[in-house]
């Protein structure tokens, strides 16, 4: 131990400790306890993951509240693993798309499509593969779940990073070129910092959406393949199976606690830290703050931990520069020819893929099935549309009311974000109990479930929009005594519109995804179904009918793409063109 050693090196260290240069202060102690506890938990959780699958069968999830913290930990770790995967994906794929024009030609539309494929489909198709990969270990099921969570996060993070890379400030790019920064230096000094605020925000949004899938992915049955991983999700599944209301309540409490802790210890500090990367030359008025970040910054030890990393980063050899996409093409004719060839190859692969899917689906299904899937699609489409309208009618006025009152919006905003992150599938049992008790029509009364979790996106975006309405415009509206409807028509609706579109777009995407879980619910032995594409896919999954899952997912994908391109994008463009303030 340092304190007993007599050699000079340690004596020197000791002396520095004594001089309090290195000595921990009380903040160090608190931070160390928190970080140390996290490390122990991570190690514990990770070793559990690798247990043989036999253990899983012999020790299934037990509905014992004492075990709940451990299950919560396992769920959190899954989320963590998925986030890391998503970040790796983002940095590699989005960078490739931004740097290579040809790669971008394929990757960007691909992300657009991947974004609209329902996440549970990914799970259905990959579960068998991953379990086959590690047949004797829990790791296979673990991988399948993590991959499912990954698919709910990665695409929009990659999009955000890609967009940042494409909109780098030209003068800083010129400085980097003029000083001949290597690609690594360029990435670390320019690209990554510039992209950080948008990426952090998108990661947060992704996480919020993906708690839902953490719950869904832990207890999943696709045909005869069953995944049951220790976690809050499988606890919930067991509770539903047994009809144990108390256990469901426990799950709600545990989930709430997990999201709260994640938010306070991970995301708020990161958001507060990322504020310094905002590309603005003025200090922001109300900087995001985090008590945990301030605590870490006040410690003596933690700021030092970064140093060796920084040294490693700057010691990374100067990688050769990737070809700049801006430089003039050496031979335009040849370039054009290559482009055509490349596009030709891409088209060929796409046509082959369509053919392969058609053949696969056609083996067991007929055109009539396709038509019925389309019909179900229309039903779910109507549900999503009607519910978005209803949610908008409810939340827009409330959001505006809150947004115009800063004291309120500061308090409500985190609550709305919390609600958006909360996986509503945990609450489904209560709704089912209600429907059964009052003998309600599931076709109608299951519908609200698909927007239960996603309506909050509309609320907090509208609150954000209303709170940045320029004060002078509001004052002008006051001076000229605009009547209520006139004020809404000429000031409030145009002002919040871009924000509303963002919220509604997110809500609609989330709702399509939620429909698979929401249109097909169970409670003990009661099974409720609402006719729609969601229940179509869900029942296909329960039966392990892969062609049907593929068909249903393709139809959902088509609907989502259609809605994005014919409804939300035009609204976005209109807002960007006509409703910009300033």
């Amino acid at each position, binding site marked *: 131990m340092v304190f007993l050693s007599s050699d000079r090196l340690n004596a020197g260290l000791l002396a520095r400790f004594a001089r309090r240069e290195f000595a921990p202060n009380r903040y160090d102690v608190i931070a160390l306890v928190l970080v140390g506890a996290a490390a122990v938990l991570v190690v514990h959780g990770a070793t559990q993951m690798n247990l043989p699958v036999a253990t899983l069968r012999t020790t299934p999830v037990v509905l014992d509240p004492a075990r709940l913290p451990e299950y919560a930990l396992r769920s959190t770790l899954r989320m963590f693993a998925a986030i890391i995967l998503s970040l790796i994906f983002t940095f590699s794929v989005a960078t490739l798309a931004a740097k290579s024009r040809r790669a971008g030609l394929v990757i960007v539309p691909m992300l657009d499509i991947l974004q609209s494929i329902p996440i549970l489909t990914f799970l259905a198709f990959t579960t068998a593969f991953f379990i086959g990969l590690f047949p004797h270990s829990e790791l296979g099921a673990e991988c399948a779940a993590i991959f499912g969570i990954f698919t709910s996060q990665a695409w929009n993070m990659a999009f955000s990073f890609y967009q940042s890379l494409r909109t780098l*400030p030209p*003068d*800083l790019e*010129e*400085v980097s*070129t*003029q*000083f*001949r*920064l*290597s690609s690594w*230096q360029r990435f670390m*000094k*320019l690209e990554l*910092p510039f992209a950080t605020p948008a990426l952090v925000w998108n990661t947060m949004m992704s996480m919020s959406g993906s708690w839902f899938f953490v719950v869904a992915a832990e207890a999943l049955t696709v045909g005869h393949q069953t995944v049951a991983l220790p976690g809050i999700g499988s606890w919930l599944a067991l509770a539903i199976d047994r009809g144990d209301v108390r256990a469901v309540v426990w799950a709600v409490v545990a989930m709430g606690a997990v999201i709260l802790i994640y938010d306070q210890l991970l995301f708020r500090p990161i958001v507060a830290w990322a504020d*310094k*990367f*905002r*590309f*603005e*030359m*003025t*200090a922001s008025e109300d900087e995001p703050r985090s008590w945990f970040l301030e605590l870490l910054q006040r410690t003596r030890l933690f700021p030092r931990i970064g140093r060796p990393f920084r040294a490693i980063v*700057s010691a990374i050899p*100067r990688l050769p520069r990737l070809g700049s996409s801006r*430089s*003039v*093409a050496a031979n*335009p004719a040849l370039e054009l020819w290559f482009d055509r060839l490349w596009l030709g190859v891409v088209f060929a692969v796409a046509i082959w893929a369509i053919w392969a899917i058609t053949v696969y689906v056609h083996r067991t299904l007929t055109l009539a099935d396709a038509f019925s899937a389309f019909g179900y699609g229309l039903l779910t489409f109507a549900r999503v549309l009607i519910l978005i309208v209803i949610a908008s009618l409810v939340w827009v006025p409330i959001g505006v009311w809150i947004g115009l009152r800063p004291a309120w919006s500061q308090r409500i905003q985190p609550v709305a974000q919390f609600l958006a992150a909360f996986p509503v599938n945990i609450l489904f049992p209560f709704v089912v109990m209600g429907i059964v008790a009052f003998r309600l029509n599931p076709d109608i009364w299951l519908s609200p479930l698909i927007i239960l979790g996603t309506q909050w996106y509309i609320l907090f975006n509208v609150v954000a929009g209303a709170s940045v309405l320029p004060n002078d415009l509001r004052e002008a509206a006051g001076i000229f005594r605009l009547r209520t409807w006139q004020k809404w028509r000429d000031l409030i609706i145009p002002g919040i519109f871009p924000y509303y579109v963002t919220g509604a777009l997110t809500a609609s995407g989330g709702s399509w995804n939620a429909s698979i879980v929401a249109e097909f619910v169970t409670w003990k032995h009661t099974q409720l179904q609402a006719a729609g594409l969601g229940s179509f896919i869900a029942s296909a999954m329960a039966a392990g009918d892969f062609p049907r899952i593929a068909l249903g997912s393709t139809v959902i994908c088509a609907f989502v793409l259609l809605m994005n391109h014919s409804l939300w994008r035009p609204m976005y463009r209109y807002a960007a063109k*006509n409703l910009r303030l300033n």
Partner: protein
Amino acid sequence: MTIALERSVETDAPLVEVRALKHVYGKGNGAGLTVLDDVNLTLRPNEIVGLLGRSGSGKSTLLRSIAGLITPTSGTITIKDMPGDDTAHGVSMVFQSFALFPWLTVQKNVELGLEAQGVPAEIRRKRTLAAIDLIGLDGFENAYPKELSGGMRQRVGLARALVVQPSILLMDEPFSALDVLTAETLRTDLLDLWSEGRMPIRSILIVTHNIEEAVLMCDRILVFSSNPGRVIAEIKVDLPQPRNRLEPAFRALVDDIYARMTARPTVPAARDGNFPGTGLGLALTHVSTNTLAGMIEAIAAAPNDGVADLATLARELQMEADELLPIAETLQLMRFAEIEGRTIRLNPAARRYDAADVDERKQLFAQHLLAYVPLAAHIRRVLDDRASHQAPATRFRDELEDFMSEPYAEETMDAIVSWGRYAEIFAYHEDDDRFSLDDPA
């Protein structure tokens, strides 16, 4: 820094030689925009050379070509006197927008170039602190750019450029984003450092559109024409430093440069003349009608009485040459004024305009617009001929692009829309991009 030593061994061999430089932006099929045409430039040790011209004269493109940021279409650029062979480039650059990394401290921003060169951390720190010290930034090492004023930010930009010890310093309108007082202080500080030989650089190339700034700082000024950018004059400035703006010789030189910048056919006859009958090839500059009216009033007002000296007028109105000249030329184009050498003289129509009320002004403006701007007359004729009295704007835009490149066509359309609206000769609807005759009732 060991600069004095470096400068003592200088010879008169040119540092930079630019020969027959031509740069065309945009389309590969040859219909691009020629921003630089046959430009020659020699930069020798111990001189500050100014590139003076209006926006669009390609002076920034020339600077960026020398910095290696742009590969010109044709021509050669030779940069001699690389100090040592390990340094990447003998040039360094200061940007108009400062181009500082908001997430790096002053010290990290200044270190950037050295880090890229792989200079060891300890030496890097030493050189950085020396540069920060030299430029008067000590005490601000750990500040972030957003905490600094504009002047301090540009000092960081300057320190960052100097720390890599370039032999040539390129400056792209370095003071134009600053207020007058700050710009003056920074200019003086830079000139002091230069004359005392405390900077490593051996030559400065500065882009500016401010004539006084060029005369204050430069030993030699190259005046550029615009569209395409060519060197139309080379002026040697022999006034001793420090120079005084109020000195008659200084004033005379500024006036002379004004005259040279205006002494050219204001209406680009070549493009106009090629298409007799239509006259659509006339590129317009978007000048607000309020500005035109203000200019007429200023020239008509008391001390001027309808005749004004352009340089004096610019001082009176606190405008740069490149702001003033397009206004004057638009007045000339519409026959409201004549420019002779460096004086501008109002025509009787402009005097009537000055005395008129709002409606009469509009009528007068409409008459001149229809009579002297062929595009306005053309649009009006098309609208009159059509039964619907409507026409999509793309139609005219396409016609313009037969004669000029896209950015010019865009600006010309902007100008015609705003003048036409003021004159009430037609209406334009932004939503669906069309012209019509209907009055917005």
